[in-house]
């Protein structure tokens, strides 16, 4: 029987340390993850978190300090980059400035020793795929940023790698082009069926394109999961803050269990599930997304809450509500924007199934 999901890449206990002795820096600590075949997998994290290091380890540009790396079940740790059927789209493209577009794209095929007609046919095919066939005689410096991006993509796709690594390929493009390229990349991945490993610090990019995301911080993988599960169920406060906006509200546990209760420092009481590891009267932190909090106008509530800052965003509004000196962020949908203004007194409601206790 054929296995439906194959493991494209297995990263097992991988550690990378730069330098030796006192000056050494651990860029990646004991990383474990498995990337499936045909998957659009994203490594997401702030700059310097180790995501690019992991990508470069997979590509073979750096030597692994400790751990194992498997490509479709085969050990690749000791292979130099030219022996790995993996190609990279570099952050600033790294197009060869002395070669024209065609020669750039054909470079890998030539090194693989393919015959002329095959090189020509494949090169033209991928150039067509990225809509750059008219530019094949141009030099990289005669192309716009977006065009260079396409050529870099074509160059990496031409040798038909088993895995394509993309190192922040959209970061040098302007917003409009970036948004268009997101869709294009996603489509390209689906059509070619190649496993994409995509590195970015842009959470929106990660959420819109990926099948699964690994959130990395300070050299450690914080969470791996599908975009919606990471957004809805962040594993810790870092993930909650890094992806989207989050309220992390401090309070005291009043009751544990499926119908637990927490009294927030702001004075509100939230009923939610509280795991039994926590004891009554323990201080806890509650996570809830700003768009999940319900807000109503009122002047007669027990807990005095008022809008301390109202920011109009065009398609929504952002509110900062103050109660008991605690600040709570709320995102207001467009149809409710008109009902509120600065200094309004309000009441807040925390829906049970959208709030949860979150670890440090």
């Amino acid at each position, binding site marked *: 029987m054929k296995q439906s999901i194959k493991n494209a890449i297995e990263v097992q206990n991988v550690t990378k340390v730069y330098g030796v002795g006192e000056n050494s820096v651990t860029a990646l600590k004991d990383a474990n993850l498995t990337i499936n075949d045909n998957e659009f997998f994203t490594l997401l994290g702030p700059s310097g978190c180790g995501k690019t290091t992991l990508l470069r380890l997979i590509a073979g540009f750096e030597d692994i300090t400790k751990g194992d790396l498997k490509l479709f079940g085969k050990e690749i740790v000791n292979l130099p*980059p030219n022996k790995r059927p993996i*190609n990279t789209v570099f952050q*600033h493209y*790294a197009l060869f400035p002395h070669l024209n577009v065609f020669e750039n794209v054909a470079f*890998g095929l030539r090194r693989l020793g393919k015959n002329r007609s095959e090189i020509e046919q494949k090169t033209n095919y991928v150039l067509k795929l990225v809509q750059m066939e008219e530019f094949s005689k141009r030099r990289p410096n005669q192309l716009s940023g977006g065009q260079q991006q396409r050529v870099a993509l074509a160059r990496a796709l031409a040798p038909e790698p088993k895995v394509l690594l993309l190192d922040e390929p959209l970061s040098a493009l302007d917003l409009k082009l970036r948004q268009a390229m997101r869709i294009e990349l996603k489509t390209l991945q689906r059509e070619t069926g190649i496993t994409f490993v995509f590195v970015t610090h842009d959470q929106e990019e990660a959420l819109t394109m990926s099948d699964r995301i690994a959130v990395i911080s300070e050299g450690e993988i914080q969470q791996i999961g599908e975009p919606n599960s990471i957004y809805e169920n962040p594993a810790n406060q870092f993930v909650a803050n890094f992806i989207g906006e989050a309220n992390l509200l401090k309070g005291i546990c009043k009751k544990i269990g499926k119908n637990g209760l927490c009294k927030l420092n702001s004075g509100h009481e939230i009923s939610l599930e509280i795991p039994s590891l926590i004891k009554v009267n323990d201080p806890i932190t509650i996570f809830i997304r700003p768009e999940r909090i319900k807000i109503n106008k009122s002047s007669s509530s027990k807990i005095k809450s008022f809008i301390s800052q109202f920011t109009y965003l065009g398609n929504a509004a952002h509110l900062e509500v103050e109660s008991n000196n605690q600040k709570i962020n709320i995102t207001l949908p467009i149809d409710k924007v008109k009902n509120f203004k600065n200094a309004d007194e309000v009441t807040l409601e925390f829906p049970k199934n959208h709030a949860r206790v979150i670890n440090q």
Partner: protein
Amino acid sequence: MFRKNKFRHVWDFPGFSGWTAIFFGFLYVPIFVLVCYSFNSSSYAMIWTGFSFRWYEKLFFNDDILQAAYNSLIIAITAAPMATAIATISALVIVRGGGFRGKEFSSGLITLPLMVPEIVTAVATLIFFATLGINLGLINVIIAHTVFCIPFAYMPIKAALEAMDPNLELAARDLYSDKNSAFRYITLPLLTPGILSGFMLAFVISVDDFIITLMVAGGGSTTLPVYIYSMVKMGVTPEVNAVSSLLLAFSIIFVTGYWFLNKKSS
């Protein structure tokens, strides 16, 4: 009536433009005078009597000058490529080798010939060859020139390497090039303008070098600058002006070529 525009930008200092003109005048008038006098028909270098090519013509029948020019050329053609080769490998290792031990030492070693006063290098090399009894004629001079030219060849090569995106080599490795073909197809072609620049500078420095050659060269290995020196010592003649002008023209053409090469590659 227009209001007289009295606005002057903060960074625009009065008098600096005129000063700069004087500065360039100071740099170029002597060269200009020298070249002018080389076309003087008078036998007395200082007195202008009329325009003539005769001193240039005379050069071509002066066997000593031709021999000296030939020596200069042979030395530069041998020393400059050797200096460039050493400079190229050293630059590759120093720029691309990461933070290895002895890196500071090696780059210090390269610039040593620039730090030590030329006259000291010259007499030290003279003592060295004399003490060890190495007397190989032109080869002595070639060795001395190679050493002295290394830092000049090194500078543009190092600059070109530092300007090159190291990801280009990684991209080549990623696209199935082994170490050698990545070097052959990517690094070397991209470095060629830098290497050529380095070679040209080394060549000019070798042809122009005077003090080291004066001390190191024996009887049969006189170079053009050393020959000019001995002519000047005997008295300024229009012939010296002519051969000096040719030497100037040679350097200027070479350096201009180097400049265009650099401009194109950047």
